[in-house]
Structures are given as structure tokens and as C-alpha cells.
């Protein structure tokens, strides 16, 4: 029983320390408790327990402090210049998407606006793929998919292509953005707000695609408002993600 309680207390130590010395500490604890019982001193076992609780409290705290200092030292003081440039592109892309809600964009510049928005998304996705705290196959696939679809969407906008291909590309863009946002929600190292805005915003924005028949120019439905709100959220999401990748340090676990 005592050993089980002590094992539970060991969870107060950092995981790397526990894995390295946990079993040795349990054995030492058992030895010390055995000595206390053998001494037959009044309150011997209770005194040993009390001393060991104090030992755990002080040394677990010091190990955690040491580890935190170690992690802090392993971080770069500022993100690399490439991350700053790519993040800035993301901010510009998100801001450009939002401009249509603030000013009347001349029709001649609309294609450029959409392309800039796509380039911003590509830039942020590239910046995140370069980060060492974004390991794993799923973020890689989600990022690559978003980059591919965004690049194709930019080409469609600049080449002024419409019809079925544009419809399919629009759907693919919002779904890829929503998927990317959901994946980023569970990744470490970044604020969750940008990813949340991207995932929810894209899911709403997809309802605004004309061919789906959920919106109407003559008699607006609730999806007119929801899809517009979704696009605003996506714009804000890319601005937040851009600021995040440009300013936030990577969380790199030190080698034990």
C-alpha cells in the first residue's frame, strides 16, 4: 500500500526524471521504510513518511523548475526571419480577404485580392510545416493539401476561370481550410483562436457557394449571413495565425 502511494506521488516529478529514476526511488523508499519499521522507534514509520513527503515536495518542485529553465534555454529567442516573412504574408492575406467587407473592391482587383488571400494561406501553411513542434504525418498532409488547393484557387482567380471547375475548387478550398484549422487546434505551440476561427469560419463559408442553393441574391436566407460571417472569421483566422507564426517561439522538448 505504502509503495503504491509513493508511486502515485512520483507523478509530481517531470516524466523524463521519473522514467530515469522512478524504480530506483521506489526501491530506496521501501528500504527506508523497512529501516524505520525495524528501528521500532515510537512514531518511526510516521516520521519516515513525513520526511519523505517533505523530500518529494521539495525535490519535485526543484526538478520541475530546472526542467522549465532547460526548456526556456532550448528555445530560440525570436522566430527565424523566414517565419516572420511568411507570417506577415498570412496577415496580409487575411487582411486582404477582409477588405471586401470594409471597402468596395474594384472588380479588376478582385482576382488579385483572392490570389493574395490564397498566397497568405500558403505562406502560413509553409511556416507551420517548417516548425519542429508540428511533427507527424497528419499535419503534413493537411498542410500540403491546403497549399495545393490554395495555389490552384489562386490560378483559377487570376485566369478568371468559372464554371464547374471553380465550384469544385471553392468547395475544396473551404474544406481544406476547415480541415487544416481542425488539425491545428490540437497541435502544440500556437494559439487556438486562429485555428478555431479557420475551422468554424470555413465550415460556414462553404454554405455561401451559389451552386449549393443555400443562399439567394434576391431573397437572402440565413446562410447569406452565416457564410459572410464565416468568410470574416476565416480572414481573422489567417491574420491571427500569421501573427502567431511570426511571433511565437517553437516549443521544443529538450533531449533527456
Amino acid at each position, binding site marked *: 500500500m505504502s509503495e503504491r502511494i509513493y508511486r502515485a506521488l512520483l507523478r509530481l*516529478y517531470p516524466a523524463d*526524471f521519473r522514467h*530515469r*529514476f522512478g*524504480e*530506483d*526511488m*521506489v*526501491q*530506496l*523508499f521501501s*528500504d*527506508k521504510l523497512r529501516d524505520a519499521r525495524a528501528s521500532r522507534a515510537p512514531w518511526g514509520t510516521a516520521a519516515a513518511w513525513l*520526511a*519523505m513527503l*517533505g*523530500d*518529494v515536495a*521539495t*525535490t*519535485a518542485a*526543484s*526538478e520541475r523548475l530546472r526542467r522549465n529553465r532547460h526548456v526556456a534555454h532550448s528555445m530560440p529567442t525570436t522566430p527565424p526571419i523566414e517565419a516572420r516573412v511568411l507570417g506577415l504574408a498570412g496577415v496580409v492575406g487575411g487582411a486582404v480577404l477582409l477588405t471586401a467587407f470594409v471597402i468596395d473592391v474594384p472588380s479588376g482587383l478582385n482576382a488579385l485580392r483572392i490570389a493574395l488571400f490564397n498566397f497568405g494561406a500558403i505562406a502560413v501553411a509553409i511556416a507551420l510545416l517548417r516548425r519542429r513542434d508540428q511533427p507527424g504525418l497528419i499535419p503534413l498532409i493537411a498542410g500540403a493539401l491546403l497549399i495545393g488547393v490554395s495555389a490552384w484557387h489562386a490560378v483559377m482567380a487570376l485566369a478568371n476561370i468559372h464554371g464547374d471547375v471553380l465550384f469544385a475548387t471553392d468547395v475544396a478550398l473551404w474544406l481544406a481550410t476547415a480541415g487544416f484549422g481542425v488539425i491545428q487546434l490540437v497541435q502544440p505551440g500556437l494559439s487556438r483562436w486562429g485555428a478555431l476561427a479557420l475551422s468554424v469560419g470555413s465550415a460556414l463559408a462553404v454554405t455561401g457557394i451559389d451552386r449549393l442553393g443555400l443562399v439567394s441574391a434576391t431573397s437572402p436566407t440565413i446562410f447569406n449571413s452565416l457564410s459572410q460571417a464565416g468568410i470574416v472569421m476565416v480572414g481573422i483566422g489567417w491574420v491571427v495565425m500569421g501573427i502567431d507564426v511570426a511571433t511565437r517561439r517553437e516549443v521544443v522538448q529538450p533531449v533527456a
Partner: protein
Amino acid sequence: MEAISQTAFHVLVAIGPEERHGYGIMQEVARITNGATRLGPGGVYTTIRRLLDDGLIEESDERPDRDLDDQRRRYYRLTGVGRTVVAKEVARLDSLVESARPWAMESAE
């Protein structure tokens, strides 16, 4: 390397020229300090972790006494750097004691 702490020095001296496991170190520290320092498992192994990371001690595969040996236990011994650090600390303390001896002992009498 940071200045060595009193606990770390106690552990280095407790290991001494031999190989010792955690329980042996704990008992030896209590003995050489006349019971003034009693380390718990956390105190022993956080110090061992620090000394291993600083290269002052290393794990030993040798078993000093096979009859008394417990295969589950890990033994530690001083490295060359560890011996040098102990020697320097002993010299520093020795100098300190020599400086204080002429007057401190008179005061005590």
C-alpha cells in the same frame, strides 16, 4: 560548471573511491555527517541526476560484493572529473579550516 552544492559534495564523498548504489549513498551521507544530513529518495536521485549530467559520476557495471549484490540496483562511481572536483573542494575547505583554526578553537575553549 556551477559551484558544487553541499549536498552534491556529500554525495561525492559518500561514493568515494568505491561503487555505491542509492541506498548505500543515503546511509553513507548520514554516517559521514553524523546524522546531520539525511537524504530521502528524491534528494539522492535529483543529486545523482545532476552529478551524472555534469559528468562527475557515472554508472558502474561492476559489483563490489556479489554476495550482497542486488541486480536491480544501479551502482555509481566517481569519474576523473568528479575526483578533481572533490580534491579542489577539499583543498578549499582545508584552507578555510586552517584560517579559522587559530582563533576559532580558542573561542570554543
